[in-house]
């Protein structure tokens, strides 16, 4: 009997998936969206993203090291993803100290206060964003125009409203949708991201590319993004069919605002979405409807982040009642 023998339980074989791999894959998947926003908004977008990541990693490190005094796992990539997503959810003109406060809310309140990675009930990046939106409404609703528009106009700086903002204001004033069209970017511009908005959410195309990367690596499943966007489109489409003068069409709703970013990267956050496929579908469909409802009837122009936060709260309940299909239960062998 030699001392170095180890006793442990099967399995003795281990797959090569790890938390780090998952998290850094998400970071890689967000690079196209980052590239697009740097292209449209310039170096400011990069500044905000780098700061966001730095703040989140540093805060997680400090909290783990000095407050909780636990093992430091700040570099496993999860803080980087939170920082990245938080930065993606703010305008590129945000002052650094507001971003720091947002990061503190995201990491400190939403994540570490609950016990760190895996224990947070709400998506930390969205909590950070909600906190900033409530605290700094002016800065959070000032959208720098894409660089090209600024060059074209010859001004030093220019702000432009988001398509959803234009829509909300227009509808409030009673302007028919058709008349708003000249203020709006074209669908193609919206698809590639040539419009005002938060850093990460502008380019549907880049987000789609990142999402497909995640799908191909099997980090996420297609259920949440697909059903979220479908239910958003279905809900808004219903009203559009009923009254196209007052309501915008579903394609607009999918491309505008944070719906794409939310569906692909926020709602699919593993920690805060349901576990079973059935649960995920319920989660996504309810989230999509909520988002549509906030956009059409709420006072905020954008409802995506709130819809996901609200649905996060339902996840334990969904997990309790929507179980995966058990093998050998409710069997029908054709008898």
């Amino acid at each position, binding site marked *: 009997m*030699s001392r170095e*023998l180890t006793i442990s339980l099967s*399995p003795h074989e281990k797959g090569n998936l790890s938390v780090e791999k998952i998290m850094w894959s998400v970071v890689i998947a967000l690079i196209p969206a980052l590239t697009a926003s740097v292209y449209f908004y310039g170096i400011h977008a990069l500044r905000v993203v780098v700061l966001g990541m730095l703040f989140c990693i540093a805060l997680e490190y400090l909290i783990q090291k000095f407050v909780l005094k636990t093992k430091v796992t700040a570099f496993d990539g*999860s803080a980087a993803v939170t920082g990245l997503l938080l930065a993606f959810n703010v305008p590129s003109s945000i002052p650094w100290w507001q971003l720091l406060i947002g990061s503190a809310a995201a990491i400190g309140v939403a994540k570490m206060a609950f016990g760190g990675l895996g224990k947070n009930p709400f998506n930390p990046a969205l909590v950070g964003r909600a906190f900033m939106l409530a605290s700094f409404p002016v800065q959070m609703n000032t959208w720098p125009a894409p660089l090209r528009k600024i060059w074209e106009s010859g001004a030093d700086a220019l702000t432009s409203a988001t398509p959803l903002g234009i829509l909300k204001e227009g509808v409030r004033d009673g302007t028919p949708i058709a008349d708003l069209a000249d203020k709006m970017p074209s669908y193609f511009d919206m698809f590639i991201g040539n419009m005002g908005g938060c850093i990460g959410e502008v380019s549907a195309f880049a987000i789609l590319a990142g999402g497909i990367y995640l799908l191909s690596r099997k980090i996420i499943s297609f259920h949440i993004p697909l059903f979220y966007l479908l239910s958003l489109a279905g809900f808004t489409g219903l009203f559009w069919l009923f009254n196209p003068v007052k309501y915008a069409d579903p394609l607009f709703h999918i491309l505008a605002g944070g719906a794409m970013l939310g569906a692909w990267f926020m709602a699919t956050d*593993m920690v805060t979405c349901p576990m079973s496929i059935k649960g995920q579908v319920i989660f996504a469909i309810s989230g999509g409807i909520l988002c549509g409802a906030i956009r059409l009837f709420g006072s905020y122009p954008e409802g995506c982040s709130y819809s996901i936060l609200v649905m996060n709260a339902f996840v334990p309940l969904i997990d309790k009642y929507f179980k995966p*299909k058990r093998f050998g*239960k409710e*069997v029908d062998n054709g008898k």
Partner: protein
Amino acid sequence: MKLNTFKIGGVHPPENKISAALPIKTLPPPKQVRLLLSQHLGQPAVPVVKKGDRVKVGALIAGGEAFISANIHSSVSGTVLKIDNVIDVSGYRKEAIVIQREGDEWEDSIDRSEELNNDITLAPEEIIDKIKEMGIVGLGGAAFPSHVKYLPLPGDAAKADTLVINGVECEPYLTADHRVMLEKSDEILSGIRVMMKAGRVDRAIIGIEANKADAIELLSGKARAIPGLEIVPLKVKYPQGAEKQLIKALLNREIPSGKLPLDVSCIINNIGTALAVYEAVQKNKPLIERVVTMTGKSLKKTGNFKVRMGSPASILLEALQEELPPGTARIICGGPMMGKAVNNLEIPISKGTSGFLLLDEREARRKETKNCIRCAKCISVCPMGLEPYLLEKLAERRNFEACETEDIVDCMECGSCSFTCPSNRFLLDYIRYGKTNVMRIMRDRR
């Protein structure tokens, strides 16, 4: 061509079938054998010999008297040294009969010729009795007494229509079944005919994973001569060798939770069992030998060996003329997914032993455990549709009532969840603990 497989869950561990091309070598009987009284599921056998008795190879030394139990025969000729406790796979000491070998004298009734005996003369009941008498158990790993599978369920009209033969060998590394299929194909097919007669079925299917193309080809060619026999290649996916998954893959029948294969009209046996049945029924030879794989990346040579039951595992290394490699950190009895880590190489080979695997320090050490990130990978790979992350938490908190309502007893401990978990959590460790407790609670309730 689209190959069949089971529907939910499953993983793809690296196959590492290092010893697949190496022919089976028969090892000489060891100096001493230690035959555990409990080599099978169910009640331990009761010794019928005492210290000092002389026995021949194949002599009955312990009788399986309970309904689920199996006879045990001497695998060598010699003197019964003692009936004592020896360390078995679990690390705890279990009762065993120790026999000192003297010569190699077989019981006269055993037909030791290599000649194929394809002539089935016995009636179904006689075959079942023979299987019982010869102490045949499932050689796939669980070691369930085989004759029980052929008896009709008490008070139930369920009747088998299909015999399923498991040639999947989905565990990585192990190649014993593969080699048996290649080298003993005629005997296996004859054994299957015996089993079809015993089970009164007209249809038999052998399921083989597509990574054993040579075995599929060989058996398909020979199977044409047997009416009702079919060879079905299957897509490689772990744990396809589990009976519920295999029946789902082959016949698309789903065994209800807590039920037996017979409830979906199936009898399922391992390919090695088919060979053992052939030898028992046609050659009168009890289950005293089996094929075992000795493998590991750190070994210079690996191999498949036919050994006597009760031999210490160390004779496999001796046969390879190898020492235990210096970096060995784990000795695993069985495959890497479901095998048990044992604490030395002296443990006796029993009816359920399919192989030994050596892992070095780098392969063996588990990685550091992190928080569950709720990635749901464990749910997506669980072949039983359970929620391993939840069961782990419940078992850790010893909330066994909740474990029971979450169907913890359906877990077959395949290890897919722990294999996949990106946070390296001890999912199966806790689930197994919870399952053991829930089973005990359920037994107590009855």
